[in-house]
């Protein structure tokens, strides 16, 4: 397996979706390829840092506005049906 192939398979590899043969070939390559080892570790770290970039909790004032919106718009539809 070549470096380029290894990098193309990273999504499946990290999701544990590779078949045994392909996984063994990839891991064989990784043992001897320092650039790929570094690449995969920075790729994994990127995924890990991305998880921290979440938008947080929904603002309370937005919850209030949504509740009013629902009551004003859907309450009428509900009774009109």
């Amino acid at each position, binding site marked *: 397996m070549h*470096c*380029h192939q290894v*990098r*193309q398979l*990273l*999504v*499946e590899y990290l*999701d544990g979706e590779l078949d045994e043969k392909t996984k063994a070939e990839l891991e064989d390559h990784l043992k001897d390829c320092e*650039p*790929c080892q*570094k*690449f995969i*570790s*920075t*790729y*994994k*770290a*990127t*995924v*890990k*840092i*991305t*998880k*921290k*970039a*979440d*938008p*947080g*909790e*929904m*603002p309370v004032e*937005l*919850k209030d*506005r*949504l*509740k009013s*919106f*629902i*009551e004003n*718009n*859907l*309450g009428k*539809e*509900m*009774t009109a*049906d």
Partner: protein
Amino acid sequence: MKESVGKNGDKKTKPLKAKDKDSHLIELILEKKDMDAFEKLMEKYQDRVWRLARGITRSDSDAEDVLQDVFLTVFRKLKSFEGRSSFSSWLYRIAANASYMKIRSRKGTQAYAPEDIAPLVDKDEADAKSEWANDPEEVLGSKEAVGVITEAIDMLPREYRAVLVLRDIEGFDNKEVADMLGLTVPAIKSRLHRGRIFLRKKLNDFFESEVKNQQTA
């Protein structure tokens, strides 16, 4: 609460499972026009729908528009919900689709088009010099590093951004994301990979500049 009859003929009260609770609320909405039931359903899912919409649109006002659209759509289409998938899957599909439509309808140009980042991504795939992955946890998870990622997500082509947010931030699997966005699983994997490579490049640039700054200090 549901009642069932135990071995001794005594009635037992079982707590409803999440899916049963949704079904119960949906029944109340459809059969009794119960507005409180709709509000309960909305309150249960509004946080997740907002996170999803905010993550994809990257805008508070767009996310609010999406949220309103989603609950209007759910209310009006609830009769057609057949229960083949769970209510939550159906709802998230509507939310992801509405968010995606919102960013597609936006006027103006996006930071990068998919064809613009392709060479960047291909070049970065070949670059494996960086060693920042071994940096301590507090450096990797620092405000600055997360800020770099947030900015990079904003710059991603919308086609990649929706996939990356749903997979790597919201934690849906490839099949779920494919269903939500009406794409194939291979297309999801390809966009996810390219999105991650783009983000990795931005982190590389950031950590390399940090090292240079330390050397010159």
